[in-house]
């Protein structure tokens, strides 16, 4: 078969025009929200050594890393699959001398082999935050409030946040060997009672403990979950985890988010490095908009032992969700198509640009018809066509075709007094 030079690998994509504008709008807005809350940007390299990349990743995640070889050394290089662990490494090394806590934010892509037929992407664009060096619940709450504030800024009001806690589940898994633990975690993640029961029976777990375990699959919902969960706590760690989660949940309720937040204590998804609260953000249509959580043992793998918590938005799913709202972000190719009759079009365009407008100046003269057809295709709402004598303009509104004779000043005034559409 002849190679197809226009093909792109499965699971990658090109963003054009409107899509690219929405991507930038989201990344910019999220970044601005993070900066407004004191987060500092960190930019990490898109590839790194395999040994450092796999820290904190499960076997399945490791298998899906995209790798190649460094020519000089023969070492394995990989495309980064996770930015959080890179940030953790930075926090442990270059940033170690800075005062704590570190509030960090980032925007970038992560890569992993997509599984076919699952609608997965090779490349996932993320925008996220991490707070490193603060173990208290204040940091978890700040991460959650930051993400809520970011959602507001991009115009998403329909979403739901699901909270779980790795510390709560820990004690339930202690008595199983590795194989059973994997199986039971997987079954719990799917709330698959029959599979859980089979393992409990096989491991001969005493009935009261087994009942507690089965209850785990039902620990989802609101406030009421905490009482049910307390009844099956088996040790101090679980109780502390529950207290911790309750504090977080109450502060979100105080912030008026009760309707948006739910608890799911059986949730085991996400990276294996989470030690505390874990968070998953869903859109109204059910896609995952982001995930996060507390990972107190990740930074110390690179030395100084620092607690940390973070969250990352999935930009592509966010774009999708924002486009589905009643007021998706406005996109236009330019604000004006400026067709000059004299040699002064560049100067005129400059004046309009100084006033803050996006101006497209064609290289060759255009008739009104040509200008209109071009502006329609490129989504430019206004056309200014200079009169042949250079005395004023015909202002054509692309959508309606309405023509107004005006001077440049008139146009700028009209623009700023609300005639933007």
């Amino acid at each position, binding site marked *: 078969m002849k190679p197809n030079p226009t093909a792109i690998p499965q699971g990658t994509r090109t963003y054009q025009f409107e899509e690219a504008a929405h991507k930038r709008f989201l990344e910019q807005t999220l970044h601005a929200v993070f900066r407004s809350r004191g987060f500092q940007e960190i930019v990490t390299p898109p590839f790194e050594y395999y040994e450092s990349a796999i820290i904190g990743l499960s076997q399945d995640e490791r298998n899906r890393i995209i790798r190649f070889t460094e020519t000089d050394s023969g070492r394995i290089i990989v495309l980064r699959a996770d930015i959080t662990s890179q940030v953790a490494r930075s926090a442990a090394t270059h940033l170690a001398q800075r005062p704590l806590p570190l509030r960090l934010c980032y925007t970038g892509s992560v890569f992993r082999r997509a599984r076919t*037929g699952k609608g997965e992407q090779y490349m996932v664009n993320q925008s996220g935050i991490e707070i490193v060096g603060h173990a208290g619940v204040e940091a978890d709450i700040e991460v959650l409030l930051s993400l809520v504030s970011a959602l507001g800024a991009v115009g998403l009001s329909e979403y*739901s946040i699901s909270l779980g806690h790795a510390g709560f589940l820990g004690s339930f898994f202690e008595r199983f060997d590795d194989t059973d633990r994997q199986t039971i975690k997987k079954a719990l993640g*799917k*709330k*698959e*009672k*029959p599979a859980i029961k089979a393992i409990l029976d096989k491991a001969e777990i005493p009935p009261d403990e087994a009942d507690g375990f089965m209850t785990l699959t039902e620990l989802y*919902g*609101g406030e009421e979950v905490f009482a049910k969960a307390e009844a099956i706590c088996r040790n101090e760690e679980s109780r502390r985890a529950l207290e911790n989660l309750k504090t977080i949940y109450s502060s979100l309720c105080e912030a008026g988010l009760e309707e948006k937040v*739910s608890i799911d204590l059986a949730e085991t998804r996400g990276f294996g490095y989470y030690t505390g609260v874990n968070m998953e953000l869903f859109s109204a249509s059910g896609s995952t908009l982001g995930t996060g959580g507390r990972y107190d043992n990740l930074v110390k793998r690179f030395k100084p032992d620092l607690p940390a918590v973070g969250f990352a938005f999935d930009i592509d799913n966010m774009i999708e969700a924002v486009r589905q709202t009643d007021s998706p972000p406005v996109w236009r190719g330019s604000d004006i198509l400026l067709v000059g009759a004299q040699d002064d079009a560049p100067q005129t365009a400059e004046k309009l640009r100084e006033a803050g407008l996006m101006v497209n100046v064609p290289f060759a003269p255009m008739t009104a018809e040509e200008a209109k057809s071009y502006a329609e295709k490129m989504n430019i709402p206004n056309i200014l066509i200079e009169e042949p004598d250079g005395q004023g303009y015909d202002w054509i509104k692309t959508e309606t075709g309405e023509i107004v004779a005006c001077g440049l000043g008139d146009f700028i005034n009209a623009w700023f007094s609300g005639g933007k559409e």
Partner: protein
Amino acid sequence: MKNNRLTVAIPKGRNLRPTVELFRRIGIDFSSALEENRKLIFKDEKTGASGIIVRDTDIPAYVEGGAADMGVSGKDQIEEQEKQLYEMLDLGFGYCRLVLAEPKALKENDDPSRWTHIRVATKFTNLTAKYFLSRGIHAEVIKLYGSIEIAPIVGLSERIVDLVSTGNTLKANGLVEVETIMEVTARLVVNRASLKTKRERIGGVVRRMEEEIRKNPIKD
């Protein structure tokens, strides 16, 4: 969240009737799914729940993608497709087994413990590959979409992996079972986000179904 409407993916085929019966018992009327009018989307006016009728193999995709909040799917398809779903109830009906089978003549002198490489025809390529991989056997898996049983007869593969309920089809084609790979029943699958955003509604449905099945199992 404001949207509290329930959308259910109902499978065509053998699990259709038991599924309609299951929902009838908890007060949701999907009986129009049984009518011959070929309407694939309909609504139970009393509860406001919508039903969509899709191929049984497509249920996990509809539910994972959020096009339906919940659905009824065979365990075979759930395992084959490995979608991100909650698998909340074993509904008990739709029982069958996924088995490895081979021609009777081959079986007589066969010792599965010596296999290193086998050729298998199946609809369930993922499950089959994983099953043999976990036992250290390299399986060359040939994907077929139907009439799996004839593959050994015409020499496409030596063995097949397929669902059996009575075993009559195997027998009619001169095949015998070698191993059961998994036992299959219908499961209630639920979209992950829906369980959180419509938790009262879906939680209620799940609890009532669980009770109903415990009291009086639904038959095929």
